[in-house]
């Protein structure tokens, strides 16, 4: 775009078309804004003396319009606590983009009379506010926060997030205690090793050994408790997992060392505590990722209004004369059969049928369809969707948990519960490794007992087989690689909720993509201008000047394309669902659907327009002075990095498929435009069929990943072996997925995939090293000819190999 034609919003720094900017004179300086919200916030900050905010914020501020939302105080009722002098509330703040934002919120609220304290957490964006009774109310506080463009949200307590939060805390305590004792333990272990070579006072040696025992005990039984519990649980069900191996490795080393202590042999308490501590670190980081991405489903509340306009009775003629007046009641009281009035700009509170009026309804959050749908009488409307431009009355059919929105959430939860985990490589290795080692240990015991007849020597040799065969290397092989991969993915800009996901993703043979909002931006853009009798710039200038007055999505897209000065417009009229009319530059201009032009007696080339529409374009037809002047086609623009990302995946031998609700002609057009070899598409998929499509791909045993962003993708994301959600997408999509792209870049899909492939390769190499060690050392242990220092050295070498090999992932 031409630089002189764009201007940055004074508040949010968003680059916008100069023509669309709201220009206001503030304290003698002309300021441009991208939206009324930004303008309002800017003025408020100037008035209250907070303009320092603009100097304070740094490059971490991301440009983007701010919203001043209306948040009901009822959402926070449960989180208000009474204190000695007043009340205290904890809430989550959305819209914080940089450190200056927190400074602004804190100082802006502290200025308020009655606010005792406000503290915002820089990391979690949760705020704790306390205020004095009687001076201000919660509502005033909430309104003040929203007035500067931040949205207060209740902190969800009952959701899965708090379970993960608890898990994370639990792991943190177990890890820090484990780490502390392990560090202490290493001091005495090193001393013992040094003593082995250089000689050591036997009294000190005994003391160091007992100290090591003392220090390893809490690690084994407190930090290691999760492993003990999990392996016992798995054993009860007759199988072995990674936890079994960790328990066996640490447990046998612990027991062996106690015996060794009394038999005056070398102790291995360090093995016990190091395995447990390192693996706990991995678990802790993993649970942190889970907690970060799963605080969503209760946010659904924010889609649904808490207050509704209730009509006692309904009759079209009496309503029109204004004899029925609505009253405001809480949404909880609404029952099927009630009549509700929905004003423009409100969200629809329940599923129902339109009985009066017509309006365009934005259903994008439910269907993914970017254009608002025209709803006339008898049309169905759904809870949570947004009423755009007309007043309607609806007859309620479903409320609360029976609405389409709630049913989708329910379906997602069901799918999550029934998702069968795929066995990962480590568990598979463990499932046969553990029995084999146990058999070898028993054979050793019986063999030695048979030949030597000494119970003690036989037992010690059998246990040493167990200790030596479950080395750090094998325990670390997978968790360490997964841990490094997880942190690398985080650095790239995505969050993997569990380590297993990475492994599953590397095996994905098919990746399905949702079209709207994933492959495309979900925003309309002018594609082509087709003219009849006049030149393109003229047609655009007339149309854009007219469309400037409308807030419709199509109008906005057309105005955005036009960068010159507007022509004078008078007699502007908007006809919902049809188009616009007005006098532009003294000429009568009509712009809208082809039907609208025809209704007004304009002759139109129907076939040409229909051809474009059938390709998936939206066409805005224009007539100037009653003569068809041409039309402007618009479509949802493709993300800049979509094609590149798809090509990368195809190169790796992954089948890429696009799912779309459009007809096949439009889908074909899209695929053509992307120009990626072997890209397939499935057209006319309704939002509720997506999960079935995923299942059909999985049927042949193929592992299938799904990338999506909308509520309508949620079930498919859960059903897929790996669900990948766009971070800017809806909360439910984020909740249902395994990987969340925190940056709005689609190419992360292919980079994360690459990382997962490398990770699996490294895991396999790690396992190979760990097994090479076993092949050398187990025969020595069986024959009882192993030298303790030799085994310790080999153990360290194999562990180091695994560690360094794993670090290759991070590169």
């Amino acid at each position: 775009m031409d630089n002189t034609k764009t201007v940055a919003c004074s508040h949010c720094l968003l680059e916008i078309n100069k023509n669309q900017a709201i220009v206001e004179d503030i304290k003698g300086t002309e300021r441009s804004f991208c939206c009324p919200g930004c303008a309002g916030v800017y003025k408020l900050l100037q008035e209250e003396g907070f303009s320092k905010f603009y100097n304070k914020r740094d490059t971490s501020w991301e440009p983007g319009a701010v919203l001043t939302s209306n948040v009901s105080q009822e959402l926070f009722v449960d989180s208000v606590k009474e204190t000695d002098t007043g009340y205290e509330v904890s809430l989550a703040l959305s819209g914080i983009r940089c450190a200056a934002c927190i400074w602004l919120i804190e100082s802006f609220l502290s200025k308020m009379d009655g606010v005792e304290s406000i503290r915002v957490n820089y990391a979690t964006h949760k705020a704790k506010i306390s205020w004095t009774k009687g001076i201000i109310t919660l509502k005033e506080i909430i309104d003040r926060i929203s007035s500067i463009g931040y949205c207060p949200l209740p902190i969800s307590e009952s959701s899965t997030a708090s379970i993960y939060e608890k898990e994370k805390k639990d792991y943190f305590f177990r890890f820090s205690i484990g780490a502390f004792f392990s560090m202490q333990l290493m001091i005495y272990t090193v001393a013992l090793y040094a003593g082995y070579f250089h000689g050591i006072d036997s009294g000190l040696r005994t003391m160091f050994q007992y100290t090591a025992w003392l220090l390893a005990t809490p690690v084994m039984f407190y930090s290691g408790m999760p492993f003990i519990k999990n392996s016992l649980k798995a054993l009860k069900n007759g199988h072995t997992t990674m936890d079994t191996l960790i328990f066996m490795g640490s447990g046998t080393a612990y027991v062996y060392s106690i015996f060794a202590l009394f038999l005056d042999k070398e102790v291995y308490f360090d093995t016990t505590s190091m395995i447990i501590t390192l693996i706990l670190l991995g678990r802790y980081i993993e649970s942190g990722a889970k907690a970060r991405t799963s605080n969503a489903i209760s946010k659904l509340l924010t889609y649904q209004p808490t207050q509704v306009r209730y009509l006692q009775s309904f009759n079209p003629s009496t309503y029109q004369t204004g004899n029925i007046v609505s009253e405001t009641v809480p949404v909880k009281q609404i029952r099927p059969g009630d009549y509700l009035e929905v004003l423009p700009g409100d969200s629809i509170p329940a599923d129902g049928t339109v009985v009066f009026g017509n309006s365009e309804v934005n259903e994008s959050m439910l269907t993914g369809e970017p254009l608002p749908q025209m709803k006339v009488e008898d049309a169905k409307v759904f809870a949570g969707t947004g009423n755009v431009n007309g007043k309607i009355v609806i007859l309620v059919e479903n409320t609360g948990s029976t609405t389409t929105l709630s049913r989708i959430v329910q379906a997602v939860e069901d799918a999550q519960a029934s998702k069968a985990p795929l066995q990962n490589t480590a568990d598979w290795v463990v499932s046969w490794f553990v029995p084999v080692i146990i058999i070898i240990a028993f054979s050793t015991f019986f063999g030695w007992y048979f030949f030597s007849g000494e119970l003690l020597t036989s037992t010690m040799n059998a246990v040493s087989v167990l200790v030596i065969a479950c080395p750090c290397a094998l325990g670390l092989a997978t968790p360490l690689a997964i841990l490094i991969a997880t942190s690398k993915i985080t650095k790239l800009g995505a969050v993997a909720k569990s380590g297993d996901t990475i492994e599953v993703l590397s095996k994905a043979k098919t990746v399905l993509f949702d079209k709207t909002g994933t492959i495309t931006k979900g925003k309309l853009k002018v594609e082509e201008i087709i003219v009849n009798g006049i030149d393109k710039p003229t047609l655009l200038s007339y149309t854009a000047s007219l469309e400037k007055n409308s807030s419709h999505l199509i109008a906005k897209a057309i105005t955005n394309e036009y960068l010159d000065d507007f022509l004078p417009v008078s007699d502007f009229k908007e006809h919902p669902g049809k188009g616009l009319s007005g006098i532009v530059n003294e000429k009568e201009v009509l712009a809208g659907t082809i039907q609208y032009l025809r209704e007004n007696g304009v002759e139109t080339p129907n076939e040409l327009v229909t051809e474009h529409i059938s390709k998936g374009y939206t066409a805005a037809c224009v007539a100037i002075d009653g003569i068809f002047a041409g039309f402007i086609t618009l479509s949802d623009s493709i993300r800049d990095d979509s094609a590149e990302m798809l090509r990368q995946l195809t190169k790796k031998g992954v089948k890429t498929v696009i799912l779309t609700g459009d007809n096949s002609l439009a889908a074909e057009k899209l695929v053509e435009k992307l120009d990626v070899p072997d890209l397939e598409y499935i057209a006319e998929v309704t939002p509720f069929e997506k999960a079935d499509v995923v299942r059909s791909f999985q049927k042949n045993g193929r592992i299938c990943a799904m990338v999506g962003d909308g509520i309508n993708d949620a079930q498919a994301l859960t059903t897929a072996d790996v669900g990948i959600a766009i971070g800017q997408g809806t909360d439910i999509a984020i909740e249902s997925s395994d990987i969340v792209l925190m940056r709005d870049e689609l190419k992360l899909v292919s980079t994360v995939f690459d990382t997962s492939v490398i990770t699996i390769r490294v895991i396999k190499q790690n396992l190979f090293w760990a097994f090479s060690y076993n092949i050398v050392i187990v025969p020595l242990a069986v024959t009882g000819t192993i030298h303790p220092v030799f085994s310790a050295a080999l153990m360290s070498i194999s562990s180091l190999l695994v560690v360094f090999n794993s670090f290759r992932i991070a590169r």
Partner: protein
Amino acid sequence: MGALYMMIPISLILGVIVLFIFLWATKSGEFEDIEGPKYRMLDDDEEDS
């Protein structure tokens, strides 16, 4: 050498005390906002809280 028999138990006891102080601090929310202080220390204008 004899001193070691005293010093080691003492060091362990001190270490455990420090560990408990750390755990207590964590539990009482001391490390909940580790991002904040680096910004707050530069805000010299208005006292918050």
